[in-house]
C-alpha cells in the first residue's frame, strides 16, 4: 500500500495498492487553502485503505507555500507511522497520467512538455518522451522555469507538444513511486523542487529620513 500526497497545485491525497489499484483518491482543486483541507483529505484516504508501507510525495515544482504543506504533512505522517517517504517530481505524476490515458485509447503520445503555473509571469515545464520498461515516463529535461511569453518557442526548439496541467493526481504520484520502488530507482532528491532561490532582497543601507 502506498499513500500519495501532492500539494503543488491543488491538494490531493490518494492510497493505492503496490500494483496500482486506487483505493482512495481525495482532492480539493482550490489552489489555496492547502493547510485547511489536507488533514481531512488525509484522514479520509487513510481510513479507506490498509496501512501504507510508503508515502509518495509530490516534490513540486509549485507555488512554495502550498507545496510545503503537502511535503510537511507527508514527511511527518511517515515519521508518525515509521515508514519511508518516496519523493516524486510532481510533473512525473502528471506525465504518467497522460501516457497511461493515451495508452488506454491506443494513441501514440508525441514528445510533450508538462506545463504548470509558476507565478511571477513564469511557467514550470518538464519534457517527456514515452514510457520506459519500468513503466515510468522518460524525462528528457528536468523541471525548469520559463517566462510565459518565451515558453512556446522553447518547446518548439525541443519539439515538444505543450500539455498544460492545472491539477496533479496523487494516485499517479503514488503509482510512479510504486514503479520506482519496483525498479529500485529514485525519481527525485529529498529537497523540494523550488527552482528559485528564496525571494529576498539583500540587506541595503537604511533609507535617509531627513
Amino acid at each position, binding site marked *: 500500500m502506498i499513500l500519495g500526497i501532492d500539494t503543488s497545485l491543488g491538494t490531493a491525497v490518494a492510497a493505492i495498492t503496490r500494483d496500482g489499484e486506487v483505493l482512495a483518491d481525495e482532492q480539493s482543486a482550490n489552489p489555496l487553502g492547502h*493547510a485547511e483541507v489536507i488533514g481531512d483529505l*488525509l484522514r479520509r484516504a487513510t481510513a479507506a485503505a490498509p496501512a501504507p508501507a510508503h508515502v509518495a510525495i509530490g516534490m513540486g515544482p509549485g507555488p512554495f*507555500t502550498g507545496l510545503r504543506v503537502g511535503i510537511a504533512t507527508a*514527511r*511527518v*505522517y511517515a*515519521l*508518525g*507511522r515509521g515508514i519511508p517517504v518516496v519523493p516524486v517530481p510532481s510533473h512525473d505524476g502528471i506525465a504518467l497520467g497522460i501516457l497511461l490515458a493515451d495508452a488506454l485509447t491506443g494513441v501514440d503520445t508525441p514528445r510533450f512538455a508538462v506545463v504548470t503555473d509558476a507565478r511571477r509571469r513564469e511557467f514550470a515545464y518538464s519534457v517527456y518522451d514515452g514510457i520506459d520498461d519500468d513503466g515510468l515516463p522518460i524525462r528528457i529535461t528536468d523541471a525548469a522555469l520559463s517566462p510565459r511569453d518565451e515558453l512556446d518557442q522553447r518547446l518548439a526548439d525541443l519539439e515538444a507538444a505543450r500539455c498544460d496541467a492545472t491539477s496533479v493526481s496523487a494516485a499517479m504520484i503514488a503509482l510512479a513511486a510504486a514503479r520506482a520502488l519496483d525498479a529500485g530507482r529514485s525519481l527525485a532528491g529529498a529537497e523540494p523542487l523550488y527552482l528559485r532561490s528564496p525571494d529576498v532582497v539583500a540587506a541595503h543601507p*537604511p533609507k535617509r529620513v531627513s
Partner: protein
Amino acid sequence: MDAPLVLGIETSCDETGIGIVRGRQLLSNTIASSMDEHARYGGVVPEVAARAHLEALQPSIDAALAEAGVTLADLDAVAVTSGPGLAGALMVGVGAAKGLAVALDKPLYAVNHLVGHIAADILDAEAGELEYPTVALLVSGGHTSLLLVRDLTSDVELLGETMDDAAGEAFDKVARLLKLPYPGGPEIDRAAASGDPTAIRFPRGLSRASDMASHRYDFSFSGLKTAVARWVEQHEAAGQSVPVADVAASFREAVVDVLVTKALDACARHGVPRLLLGGGVIANKRLRDVALERAEAAGVAVRIPPLRLCTDNGAMIAALAAELISSGRPPSTLAFGADSTLPVTEIQVAEDPDAVPPAVRPGAPA
C-alpha cells in the same frame, strides 16, 4: 491517564520549536533556529524561514522524543500554533501537526501563539502557581502585546499592541542604523553598556496625554526609529562622529521606559498587582532590571519564565494544550489553517463540538 503527554509544534517565525510536556512538567524544549540565515538580510525573511522549518521538522521531532525519553505512541495529543505569525511559516507546522495527528490517530489542539507565551510560565517548576488575573507583557521581534489574563484557557483580553513595528524589530532596525549586526537586541545591549541612557531624550511612542484615550496600552516604535535615524544623520551631516554607545543606551531606554510604564499603568488601572513578562526581548537585561525595579516600587509582583521558554518554542504550545485538556476542552477539528492575525481572544481554534477531550484521570496532577 496521568497528566497528558503532549507534543507541541511551533513555526510562527524563525524558530522551529518542538516541545514535549507531561501536564506542567517540561520533558523537552527543542529549538532549531534559522536566525543565522537571516543575518545577511538584517531581518527575518519569510521564505527563508519557511524553507528552514520544513527541513528542521523531522530532526527536531526526533531530538525532542529522544530527550524526553518517550515515543510517538506514548503521546496523548499533538498541539500546534495556528497563529498569529508568518503565514507561510505557520503552514509548515500546521501541515506537520495534521500529518502526525492522523498518523497516530491522536487528538490535535490548534492554539494561539501569544497565549502560548503565557503558558510558558506554568512550566517553571520553581515559580509556584500562576495567579489570576495577571497582566502580561509579551515582547519579541514579531509582537509587542499587553494582555489581561483572567484564565489561561478561557479568558485572555487584549489591552493593547504595537501599531507598527514590534519592539524586537525596532532593535534590529536601529542596530542597522548604527551599523551593528543582526540580531539587534544583543548588539544594542553591548553597545549601550558604556553609554549614557539619559544622553538623548528620544520620544516615547503613544505616551502623550492625547494618546491616552484611544491608545493608552498600544505601542508605536516606528517614530522612535525615525527619530534615532534623524539624530544620527544630523550628526553625520555636521561632520561629528556618532556616539554609538549613547545613542544605543538612549534608544534602549526609550523602548524599555514605554514598555514598563504602560505595563505598570495597566496593572494599576485594572487593580492587578501581578505582571508576567514573555517573548524573546525579555532576554534584554535592562528591560528586566527596569521592570523589576519599578514594579517593586509599585507593589507589583513580576514573573519571568526561564529565558529559553521566553523565546518562541514548542514546549509552551504543548503546555497550553495540556492545560486545555486538563480543563476538559475537546480537541480541534482538522479543518483549520494558519491565521497570521489570529486574535489573542481565540485561545484555541476550530474546537470540535462533537469530540470528547482525552480522558484525564480525576485527581491527576495537571
